[in-house]
């Protein structure tokens, strides 16, 4: 049976539809995923993300151990800051994408995808051998609730002891919500301003209720995984298992910038990744705007309109609720990846015209990043 988050009963009372995701029973929607999507773009949405995994490192060499284990440089993350990074195999293939928070000088919190957490935990322990650090999978110590959208800052500010205006993007601080101890991070996966709240599982219902109450007059609605997927797709954010996998390196995924090469001890995958950086990727991740009404979907073939040959594959696609036309992300041969290229996608036997467009599809007005 699937695992349930501590908020399962709350979701049930909100009449959520549930779906199995990475071994968890999670709310896929409460009412309409388009309405929930729109609320996150215009007011705010409240998400239960307690399925996400947490791994914590403590000790004087926690940072340099992560420098060796991950592609980024954790030891240079400032205290109270976060960084998006990846863990790669020796051949450069992506094993997971991660957010690393530095909570204190010798304390890091890593957030991994639910399906990868135990693998990442085991690999970190293996790679940290010889470094002065202890590594624990603390997923069961944390619930994760996200409030995302232009109204998120006001909703959180009303019940927090922290001045959220001073909490910058990709920053994290210890504080309270409605008097309850939390870690409050200004991170998210929707393309909007927003917060991720880490709390003890026993407090998660009280936090959910406090955020709901504060958000009631501000248009906050509970939001499920269905709209989370269309929100991240519009924002051009990759999803592990779709855009990211062992079969690609960060360079194919257009995320070569997260790889830091000049590290004292090197890092796992550095030789393979340096070759990929120098040779250039064979495939490139692009955005596709569909000119028809039928949406490209995961796994559909991208074709060269001149020859009809397959030149790529769709990794994610959906009708965009914000833009009103279907959008997709696809890997295509580098020669076909220029913005403006006209390609076709085989949508269940019918060739639909698409155009390569720059990612992200949607970018918020960044002036909203204040209370």
């Amino acid at each position, binding site marked *: 049976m699937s695992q349930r988050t501590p908020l399962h009963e709350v979701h049930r009372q909100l009449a959520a539809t549930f779906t199995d995701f990475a071994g968890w029973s999670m709310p896929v*929607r409460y009412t*309409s995923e388009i309405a929930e999507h729109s609320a996150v773009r215009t007011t705010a949405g409240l998400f239960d993300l307690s399925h996400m995994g947490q791994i914590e490192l403590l000790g004087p060499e926690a940072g340099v151990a992560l420098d060796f284990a991950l592609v980024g440089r954790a030891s240079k993350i400032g205290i109270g800051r976060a960084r998006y990074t990846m863990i790669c195999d020796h051949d450069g293939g992506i094993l997971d994408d991660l957010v690393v928070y530095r909570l204190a000088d010798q304390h890091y919190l890593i957030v991994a995808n639910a399906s990868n957490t135990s693998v990442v935990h085991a690999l970190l322990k293996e790679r940290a051998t010889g470094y002065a650090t202890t590594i624990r999978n603390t997923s069961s110590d944390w619930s994760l609730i996200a409030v995302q959208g232009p109204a998120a800052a006001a909703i959180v500010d009303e019940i927090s002891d922290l001045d959220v205006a001073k909490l910058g993007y990709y920053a994290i601080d210890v504080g309270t919500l409605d008097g309850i101890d939390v870690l409050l991070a200004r991170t998210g996966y929707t393309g909007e301003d927003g917060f991720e709240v880490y709390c003890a599982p026993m407090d998660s219902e009280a936090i959910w209720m406090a955020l709901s109450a504060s958000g009631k007059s501000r248009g906050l609605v509970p939001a499920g995984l269905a709209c989370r997927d269309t929100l991240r797709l519009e924002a051009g954010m990759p999803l592990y298992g779709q855009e990211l996998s062992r079969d690609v390196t960060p360079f194919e995924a257009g995320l070569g910038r997260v790889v830091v090469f000049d590290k004292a001890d090197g890092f796992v995958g550095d030789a393979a990744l340096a070759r990929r950086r120098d040779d250039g990727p064979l495939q490139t991740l692009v955005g596709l705007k569909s000119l028809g009404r*039928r*949406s490209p*979907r995961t796994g559909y073939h991208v074709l060269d309109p001149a020859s009809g040959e397959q030149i790529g594959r769709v990794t994610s696609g959906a009708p965009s*609720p914000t833009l009103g036309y279907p959008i997709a992300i696809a890997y295509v041969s580098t020669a076909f990846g220029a913005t403006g290229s006209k390609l076709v996608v085989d949508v269940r036997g019918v060739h639909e015209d698409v155009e390569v467009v720059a990612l992200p599809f949607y970018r918020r007005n960044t002036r909203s990043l204040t209370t």
Partner: protein
Amino acid sequence: MSVPTNLKYTAEHEWLDIQGDIATVGITAYAADALGDIVYVDLPGVGTVLQGGEPCGEIESTKSVSDLHAPADGEVTEINDAVVEEPGVLNLEPFKDGWLFRMRMSDSAALLDAAEYQRLTDSQ
């Protein structure tokens, strides 16, 4: 979820309102709910000859796409242009304004009554 008792059903979650040899066809509330917000409907054109059980169109939501199956043998006599224009009607009124097409049935089809369909969805 309530299932209107005056309609017939298929295991593919379509409903039929049969008046003489003309059937009005739609998808059930159970199907619409499982699909999520429906954004695109591809229906067979008027005059299309349908074969019961065969795919005859598509229903696409933000999350997924699924085939529409012909519920019986026959010929399409009318399609609901309003639902093509505004597919969200399928989520709001699947048994009423969300009807998809009308067909002249050429043969009797093996269909479920409301109680049988209810048992089917209860077991899924």
